[in-house]
């Protein structure tokens, strides 16, 4: 009988003395695992960024923008500019009371804001308090705008994280006054936004204050309808349709006019992005499986080559008393040992690389925080080791059955 320990010594000897062979099979497995994990990880990273892009805003919203008509209707000429006003807001809320949570106002301006010596041009959003919910704005410091600010047309402002960095640097902005559009504004809060840098360079002020400054008008350039989040996608489409019909009737816009009022449902975007995400994950799985198959083919080729190369050695070993089983065991133990060690190395190196990437590829390639589930990585390694062993076993079994006389014949 073979001593277990002794047969391992024999295998270490063989491995040590056949460095090229060891390197080739080990390298194939290590590279296979490495590429699999990195590609899979990067794919996951892409999916990560994708998800953050589309979770920027609340999903159960419908946006309404008035624009110009293109068809004459009920005595009105075409090219008539449609306007929403504060009274429309009240009417819309009343009309759709049962199906909506709130309607948010957003008027957008662009002007310079200044604090002490520092000044910069920013997008100013004149909004109602519920805008925080629609945009998923996160307050870092202070507070968001409230109904009091709206009712009293306070010159209060909530500034983005990057605006605070620009204008205040290390200073605490809360309670300070910044100047813009000919007025001073008191900073009541600082926010961050998952939408990223662009969002964090915005400022929020009460829409009523802006209307008052703008010669006391009552115009609203955009409304965001927040509907019941339990509403299904189809129900939201019906709501969208009803809104359109109602607004067109109220504003004397032809039902056949594609312009006049522009309505966009984020539920729709969500549906599209959900489909895109599923296509993305199919592509990622496909890449993963493809890499793994390539790895399996690679290791199989090497194992076939290794056994072929060893045919004569196997013949010699059989002539001096090696049983077929001991031949198979020798080839298998060697290949499993090499694939396990190198598979593990590939795994560790790949995970180090993935961690090293982190968010470095976010700017250029939209890959954020690439990762792989530990179970996926381990399974991939096990699969490769298994096929490496199988690829070694089949030719080894064949070689072990060859009569030594035939194996020894090629001189």
């Amino acid at each position: 009988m073979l001593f277990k320990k002794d047969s391992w010594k024999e295998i270490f000897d063989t491995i040590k003395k056949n460095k090229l062979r060891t390197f080739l099979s080990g390298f194939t497995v290590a590279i296979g695992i490495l590429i699999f994990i990195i590609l899979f990880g990067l794919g996951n990273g892409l999916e990560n960024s994708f998800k953050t892009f589309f979770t920027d805003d609340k999903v159960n919203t419908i946006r309404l923008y008035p624009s110009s008509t293109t068809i004459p209707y009920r005595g009105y000429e075409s090219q008539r500019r449609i306007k929403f006003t504060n009274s429309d807001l009240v009417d819309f809320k009343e009309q759709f009371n049962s199906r909506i949570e709130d309607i948010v106002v957003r008027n957008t301006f662009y002007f310079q804001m200044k604090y002490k010596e520092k000044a910069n041009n920013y997008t100013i959003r004149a909004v109602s308090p519920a805008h925080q919910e629609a945009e998923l704005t996160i307050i870092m410091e202070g507070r968001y705008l409230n109904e009091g600010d709206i009712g009293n047309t306070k010159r209060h402002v909530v500034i983005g994280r990057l605006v605070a960095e620009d204008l205040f640097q290390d200073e605490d902005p809360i309670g300070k006054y910044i100047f813009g559009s000919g007025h001073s504004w008191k900073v009541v809060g600082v926010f961050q936004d998952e939408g990223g840098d662009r969002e964090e360079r915005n400022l929020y002020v009460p829409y009523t204050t802006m209307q008052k400054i703008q010669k006391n008008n009552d115009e609203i350039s955009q409304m965001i309808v927040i509907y019941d989040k339990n509403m299904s996608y189809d129900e939201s489409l019906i709501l969208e349709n009803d809104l359109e019909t109602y607004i067109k009737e109220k504003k004397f816009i032809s039902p056949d006019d594609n312009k006049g009022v522009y309505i966009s449902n984020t539920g729709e975007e969500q549906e599209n992005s959900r489909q895109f995400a599923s296509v993305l994950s199919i592509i990622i799985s496909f890449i993963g499986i493809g890499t793994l198959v390539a790895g399996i083919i690679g290791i199989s080729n090497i194992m076939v080559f290794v056994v072929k190369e060893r045919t004569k050695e196997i013949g010699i070993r059989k002539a001096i008393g090696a049983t077929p089983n001991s031949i198979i065991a020798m080839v298998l133990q060697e290949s499993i040992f090499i694939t396990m060690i190198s598979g593990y190395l590939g795994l560790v190196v790949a995970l180090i690389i993935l961690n090293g990437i982190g968010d470095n590829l976010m700017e250029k390639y939209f890959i954020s925080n690439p990762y792989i589930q530990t179970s996926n990585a381990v399974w991939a390694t096990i699969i490769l080791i298994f096929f490496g062993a199988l690829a070694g076993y089949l030719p080894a079994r064949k070689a072990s059955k060859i009569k030594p006389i035939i194996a020894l014949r090629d001189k």
Partner: protein
Amino acid sequence: MIEINKLNKSYLIGKNSLHVLKGIDVSIKKGELVAIMGSSGSGKSTLLNIIGMLDNYDSGSYHLDNVPIKDLDETKAAKYRNQFLGFIFQSFNLINYKTALENIALPLYYQGISRDERQKIAFEYLEKVGLSAWSEHLPSELSGGQKQRIAIARALASQPKVLLADEPTGALDSTTSEEVMSLIKKINKEGKTILVVTHEHEIANMCNRIITLKDGVIVTDIQTS
């Protein structure tokens, strides 16, 4: 030691059957040094392969040390080879990545002898063939004669009952051939049964008995001393 009766062996080549051994009867006693001669195609190598359990035979009987050898499966054949036989090949058949000492120790590994013990025994046989200074050398660093002496030491290490040599001097020059043959003779004098397949008369004449094959039958069987 070796009892062979009416041994027949055919090879199938395509649709034709080639009758290589046609009823061989031979008896070899313990301690004999026998040369098997014949031109190529005479069946001498086939006979040696059958005796060496490297090949099967069709009919007849073959007993080695009173053990019937017939239709062995590979595992059993491997055990018998390891236990009964030592092989010496024309092309040495050393494992090229193992040192001289490791090559000699290999049959002992398959006998399940411990590593230290293997090294000890292997070294004894290395000394016996006069190459103790070359223990750590790889086959590629040895001359043909040295390689064959390592192969002989390997064949002896498992203490086989019979040594089978297939053209042991076929790849060697005449001086080296003589050295190798005198080593074989020396081992024979210590009591080992040895079969040498050769087509060289000089080599055959150094043996005690010469069996000549022609077209699958024994034509002469002469005692030389």
